[in-house]
């Protein structure tokens, strides 16, 4: 009897030792360029049940599972530059290695999926509730029936009130797809419906095929969810429309001053936007080389600099070219257009014809999810930024001495001059203000568009469209026009596509201008005749 126990113990010990040896041998099979062999190797690794399997799979997925060239040992690497490596099978630290001494283990989408499933089943039992939550969500999406048993085990042990419903939903998803009794599957459909969202809908859609009671229930649940979704979709269009609208507003608001208030057909407006974007690039370049820790604040540094530089350029343009051309719109158009070409070529000569990469600060990366709508952080920041600029400009025009003088000069130059306003100075400053605002817009647009010498050209037409549509000389008109066009564009896009959508908007504006030549908010009074 005692001998028997001793024998059993020995077996268990051997088996335990056998595990480590097994993983160490199985993992060697990963050293192949044949993907089919790799798949077999991964299945074998998973079947060892070794505690290191999760670490190996994670590393494989992250591309940190490497082969040491000297002895073809499979290692897990950590860190960039100086790479620390450890034996993948045992976890034993092996010191440092150079990148050149290590070979990568290439994986393809199939292997990625395979290792994800293995990981998903393992991470269900992780210590970290967040990891368990993610594992449950992954299973809900993957509908991998092999996860059914681990899921039931995990659910039995689960204490966390946040993870438990997720596990239950995942279980419902699998039950729905399985060949469980009809009553169970019907209950599962209700659970999946309660979860809602895109994933639930796709699950229900695949269950709705057929004509039995389960399929009918799934189809009903799907129809109910479909209704919520179309509501979400309209909301999504509206939100995206606001986002596009604020981009248009940003691009156009400087022009609303130079063209709208001063009446100068300023074809070089787009180039001011472009210069603002290049200021951002230069600021980031300097920060990268001298103070990388400031990178997240680079835009805040770029905004005043872009404003100052473009405002100065604007004043210089007004003083040297435009002031000689007041009242001659055609010549102004030609001169500013020529100027825009010169500025473009100048930037091209200094920075080269290729696009410059402007980085996104970490706080502007990623996205925010509101129900079914995903809005990226950089676009959200632009909505806020456009609103701030608009408010600031409105305050400046309404409540400052400069704003008052500006309105006076544009409404009646002679009278303003007779009242002692230095009109030439006001002209220069107004044009500088418009250009400066365009420069700030460039900082924001560098986050969503390519920074190239052609950046301005792609916004000039849109800007004129917004200002003309909104009514020349009215900031509120510009705001309403930008938002209207943005939202109209986004509601048209899903039906008509991006190209046709834009054409439809243009046709609409042409018709609208026929009917109301002065735009949405026409100025009234003597200014109109002037």
């Amino acid at each position, binding site marked *: 009897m005692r001998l028997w126990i001793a024998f059993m113990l020995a077996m268990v010990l051997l088996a335990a030792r056998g595990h480590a040896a097994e993983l160490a041998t199985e993992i060697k099979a990963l050293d192949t360029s044949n993907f089919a062999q790799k798949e077999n190797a991964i299945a074998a690794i998973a079947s060892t049940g070794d505690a290191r399997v999760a670490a190996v799979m994670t590393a494989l997925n992250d591309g940190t599972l490497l082969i040491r060239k000297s002895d073809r040992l499979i290692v897990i690497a950590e860190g960039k530059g100086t790479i620390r490596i450890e034996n993948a099978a045992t976890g034993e630290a092996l010191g440092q290695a150079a990148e050149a001494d290590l070979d990568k283990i290439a994986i*393809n989408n199939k292997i990625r999926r395979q290792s994800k499933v293995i990981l998903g089943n393992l991470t269900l039992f992780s210590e970290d509730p967040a990891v368990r939550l993610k594992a449950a969500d992954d299973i809900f999406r993957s509908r991998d029936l092999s996860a059914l048993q681990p899921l039931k085990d995990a659910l039995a042990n689960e204490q966390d009130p946040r993870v438990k419903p997720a596990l239950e939903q995942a279980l419902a998803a699998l039950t729905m797809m399985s060949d469980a009794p009809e009553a169970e599957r019907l209950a599962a459909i209700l659970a999946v419906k309660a979860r809602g969202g895109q994933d639930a809908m796709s699950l229900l859609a695949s269950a709705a095929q057929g004509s039995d009671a389960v399929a009918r229930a799934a189809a009903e649940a799907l129809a109910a969810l479909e209704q919520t979704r179309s509501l979400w979709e309209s909301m999504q269009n509206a939100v995206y429309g606001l986002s596009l609208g604020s981009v248009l507003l940003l691009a156009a608001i400087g022009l609303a001053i130079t063209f709208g208030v001063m009446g100068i057909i300023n074809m070089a407006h787009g180039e001011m936007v472009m210069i603002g974007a290049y200021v951002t690039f230069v600021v980031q370049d300097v920060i990268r080389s001298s103070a990388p820790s400031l990178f997240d604040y680079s835009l805040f540094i770029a905004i005043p600099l872009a404003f100052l530089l473009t405002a100065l350029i604007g004043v210089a343009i007004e003083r040297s070219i435009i002031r000689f051309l007041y009242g001659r719109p055609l010549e102004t158009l030609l001169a500013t257009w020529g100027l825009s070409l010169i500025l473009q070529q100048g930037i091209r000569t200094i920075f080269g014809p290729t*696009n410059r990469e402007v980085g996104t600060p970490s706080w502007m990366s990623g996205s925010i999810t509101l129900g079914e709508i995903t809005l990226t952080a950089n676009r959200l920041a632009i909505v806020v930024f456009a609103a701030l600029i608009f408010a600031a400009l409105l305050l400046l025009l309404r409540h400052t001495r400069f704003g008052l003088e500006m309105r006076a000069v544009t409404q009646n130059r002679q009278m303003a001059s007779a009242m002692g306003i230095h009109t030439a100075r006001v002209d220069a400053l107004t044009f500088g203000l418009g250009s400066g605002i365009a420069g700030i817009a460039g900082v924001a647009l560098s986050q*969503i568009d390519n920074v190239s010498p052609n950046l301005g050209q792609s916004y000039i037409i849109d800007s004129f469209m917004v200002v003309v549509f909104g009514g020349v000389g009215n900031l509120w008109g510009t705001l309403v026009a930008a938002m209207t066009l943005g939202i109209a564009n986004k509601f048209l896009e899903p039906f008509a596509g*991006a190209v046709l959508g834009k054409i439809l908007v243009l046709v609409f504006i042409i018709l609208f201008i026929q009917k109301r030549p002065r735009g949405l908010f026409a100025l009234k009074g003597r200014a109109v005749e002037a």
Partner: protein
Amino acid sequence: MNRREFAKLGRALLVATALTPMALTASPAFAEETIKVGILHSLSGTMAISETTLKDVMLMLIDQQNKKGGLLGKKLEAVVVDPASNWPLFAEKARDLLAKDKVAAVFGCWTSVSRKSVLPVFEELNGLLFYPVQYEGEESSKNVFYTGAAPNQQAIPAVNYLMSEEGGAVKRWVLAGTDYVYPRTTNKILEAYLKAKGVAPEDIMINYTPFGHSDWQTIVADIKKFGSTGKKTAVVSTINGDANVPFYKELGNQGVKAEDIPVVAFSVGEEEVDTPINAEFIKTWKTYIKNKKRVTNDPMEAHFIGFNMWVEAVKKAGTTDADAVGDAIIGVSVPNLSGGTSTMMPNHHITKPVLIGEIQADGQFQTVWQTSGTVAGDEWSDYLEDSKDLISDWRKPLSCGNFNVVTGKCGGQGS
């Protein structure tokens, strides 16, 4: 006074614009007789981002050939012109190159629109054009040599890979492209191909965007929605030019991962294939351009192959005469950068291996699939009703770019 000053400014403007092309065409003048080679790539405008590099690579290849002693005992001389991403200007500049500069061959064009624009000029003046970019097919001209990939060397294998188990067994397809001839024709071929493979029409979503599109919110949201029906979905992107940057940014920001919805693209990317000949080419390139960061790409390789083929053909023919070189070049084989050789086929397309890579964080590629041998470029797609019976063979006596094998006549469709 004002008017005069403005007139002065106007004149200054004219001078400035007139100076730019002159500065660009300045090239080393040789006292002795030279063989002129035209380089027709945009150095300004939207396509400059892609094409400038090709001008540099051509200058490097010509420079190397001159160091080897030139060709037929003469030095090669590059004639660089700037068509400024302006399609009609391409035709004018091509006419200048052929009629005024009397170049022996032209290496140039990127977009299919520009190629279509210069095509009549090359046919009229009997010039030779080496076109280095992957394109939509459906064309075969006596005067053009297509050294980039035809759809069967690029789009079709990519789709096949994604359909396979290794590629992820994709069932639903988003065909997204820029709105012009290359993406439209490629997507037409792909759509026909996918349908022939049994993909239902509701599993194919086609979307076109203008050049330089920057607001991708709706389209990415649509792709996400399209891809969440439980069937594996992939995006086949023929988006061209710098619109790609905001597209990939939006995909990343909206959290679309390559495992969920992979994107396969032909118009974007720098590739590095680990072969000694490629390493050698990259080393020469980086030394020549004096910039370690400039990466190599597919059209560069096409120019490398095309230029070497032309050199071989000229040697074989003993002259730079267009007809003689055109006859001699068919069958010429030169090394490509993937470690094999490429041959000019009778249809003026070349053989090349097909490699599919996954892009890595450092911008380089990891090959996940490749053909065992090379694939010959097929100009007339087998999947389109109009062109499946057509073949092209420029060898005498057939000498036809669109021979209909059913009717037995030359001149089925296209040019």
